[in-house]
């Protein structure tokens, strides 16, 4: 109906362009940090990450080897070397003094004081020659404008994983996340089945309570629970945080699963009952297998939420090597290494990597869960 010729073509263009703009706007922040995580410290502070994708022009100063390395060639004394050391690059201009650091093009010869001469070729090889022997202890400065190809390194990742403790924190986060994801599912599934398919007084009130608990702010729970954990001797540690995450995840788990399980066809369950199956059998043989999509949805939610959580981890875990999770470590690095973007960028991406993989591989279930949780009731 919308294809009134002409207007439609233009509209399609406009829509495509706006979506491209939107997508760029949304991914550029992440891309910026990702690119930076592969650059070394000097590159990050001297030029913006968007320049890293293209060859960069830089003004560099290199000091030649000291005079003791001079060689005598045909009556001339020569000191030589390469401005790039071992790296790749191209010299665009060079000079022999700080007043005119780019006065000559590669291949030309720049005259210097005391009858010396300097020449630099495009590959960066320089040659300083003199009729008199060089003296003194320091080398001679070579000024060059260079163009260097994009240069990426994984060194930052090595640093943060092994030296900055992100590796250990990764293990810690994993130890928190997996049990805190698995345990609530089982507990919630049984409760959800009871709320969906069993008759008992107070059922409606319980459902209302669960819906109400969905929005209780965590902030409210922290202090009382910390005190409680200390009183019963749980203190700060993994058991405490597993229990806490289980508690905080349960309302959503019960709510999502109840909605889903209540939507299962009643005939199947009724006919199983008539055939003499107990509720436990119905749950195990029929409801649980059929609810797999809902279980997966919740598992992804809970996994992402626990993995990304900072608040609960700060409160219920200690502040030592064995208990510092990645989000907490990242927060600490933001304080102590605030300007060291190479460290921060690499650390952030180590912590983001797993959720992103989960997200992209299981997006279908995540979307399904969101829809079940929000479109229906809220």
């Amino acid at each position, binding site marked *: *109906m919308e294809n009134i010729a002409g207007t439609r073509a233009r509209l399609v263009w406009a829509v495509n362009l706006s*979506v491209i703009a939107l*997508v760029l706007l*949304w*991914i*550029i*922040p992440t891309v*910026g940090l990702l690119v*930076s995580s592969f650059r070394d410290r000097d590159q990050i*502070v001297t030029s*913006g990450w968007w320049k890293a994708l293209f060859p960069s022009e830089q003004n560099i100063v290199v000091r030649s080897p000291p005079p003791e390395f001079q060689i005598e060639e045909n009556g001339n004394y020569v000191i030589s070397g390469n401005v790039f050391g071992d790296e790749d690059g191209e010299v665009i201009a060079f000079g022999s003094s700080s007043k005119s650091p780019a006065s000559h093009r590669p291949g030309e010869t720049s005259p210097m004081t005391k009858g010396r001469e300097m020449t630099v070729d495009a590959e960066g090889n320089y040659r300083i020659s003199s009729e008199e022997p060089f003296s003194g202890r320091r080398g001679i400065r070579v000024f060059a404008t260079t163009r260097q190809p994009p240069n990426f390194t994984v060194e930052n990742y090595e640093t943060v994983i092994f030296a900055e403790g992100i590796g250990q924190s990764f293990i810690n986060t994993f*130890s928190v996340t*997996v049990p805190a994801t*698995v*345990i609530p599912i*089982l507990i919630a599934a*049984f409760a959800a089945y*009871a709320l969906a398919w*069993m008759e*008992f007084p107070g059922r409606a009130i*319980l459902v209302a*309570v669960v*819906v109400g*608990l969905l*929005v*209780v*702010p965590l*902030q*409210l729970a*922290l202090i*009382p629970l910390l*005190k409680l954990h200390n009183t019963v001797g749980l203190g700060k540690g*993994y058991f405490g945080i*597993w*229990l806490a995450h*289980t508690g*905080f995840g*349960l309302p959503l788990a019960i709510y999502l699963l109840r909605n889903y399980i209540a939507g299962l066809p009643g005939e199947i369950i009724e006919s199983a009952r008539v055939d003499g199956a107990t*509720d436990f059998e119905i*749950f195990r043989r029929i409801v649980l297998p059929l609810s797999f999509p809902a279980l997966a949805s919740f598992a992804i939610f809970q996994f*992402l939420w626990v*993995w*990304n959580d*900072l608040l609960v981890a700060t409160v219920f875990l200690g502040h030592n090597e064995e208990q510092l999770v990645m*989000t907490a470590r*990242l*927060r600490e690095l*933001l304080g102590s290494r605030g300007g060291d973007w190479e460290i921060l*960028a690499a*650390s*952030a991406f180590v912590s*983001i990597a797993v*959720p*992103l993989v989960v*997200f992209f591989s299981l*997006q279908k279930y995540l979307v399904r869960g969101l*829809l079940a949780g*929000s*479109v229906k009731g*809220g």
Partner: protein
Amino acid sequence: MTQVLLAIFTIVAGVFGCVLYFYLSNLILDRLFPPRGPDAGRNINRAMAIRPWLFLGPAIVILSVYLVYPVFNSVWLSFHDAAGDEFVGFDNYLWLVGDGKFRESIRNNILWLIVVPAASTFFGLVAAALTDRIRWGNLAKSMVFMPMAISFIGAAVIWKFIYDYRGEGSSEIGLLNAAMRLLSLESQPWLTLAPGNNFLLMVVLVWIQTGFAMVILSAALRGIPEETIEAAILDGASPLQTFFKIKVPQIWGTIAVVWTTITILVLKVFDIVLAMTNGQWGSQVLANLMFDWMFRGNDTGRASTVAIVIMILVTPIMIWNIRNARNER
């Protein structure tokens, strides 16, 4: 490595324990009231009355301890002193009303509550409407949705890098200040400039939440009956008119759900502020204020009082949600 083993052990023990609990408790119930023999009818009825509570038991215990009890305990704590020993009446609440940081937090939270849900829902609606019309829409959706997977603290690092400030004489590596330089304007230490810094923090949450709004609104848009749209087009409505006058009014319910969900999240937002400004430079919010009094102030009374304020702000939405859920049946 020990904690990895501990974690594996806990998973196995936890799962096994749960299964064992449900299995054994059901078995015992069946033994106590066998659905056979002379009393079969009465036994079945009794078992049916008890079984739901076996299924619900663990959930009720955990929910009571981890969510219900803390609500009441927090109320109690808010009427007590820093250590939670002495009853102080309304002192904490009186202190709160007079506290400058609290007023600042309330002001900022109101700003957050207006801007973030509105902006996220708006961008989400636009993104949903646009991506549904193109062939690579699903890919585009994934990209906009992606920040949902990133932790608030990770997002804070990402955006702090964008707002980075180097100052006069060095090249700006933050995107925002580089853009300022490109326009021959002076670069600014953005995060320290009140009240604008609040909006820069909100951008982060909008960036995260737009994907959520988009996914849900997109599903709602697709659920609109075709006939209404066809009728509008036949009557000569332009695409924009169709969108705003036919489609949007039909998904008001879903928009409200998205709006309230993000509103609740906003009230609890904490990591972003903690990581980017820690409430300095006029950017404090309630959740971070509470955290501050809990950890740095070591004052459970005041921290609980702030938490109660957050709870009170959430309550209307809670009631609305419960009423909605009940109306469904």
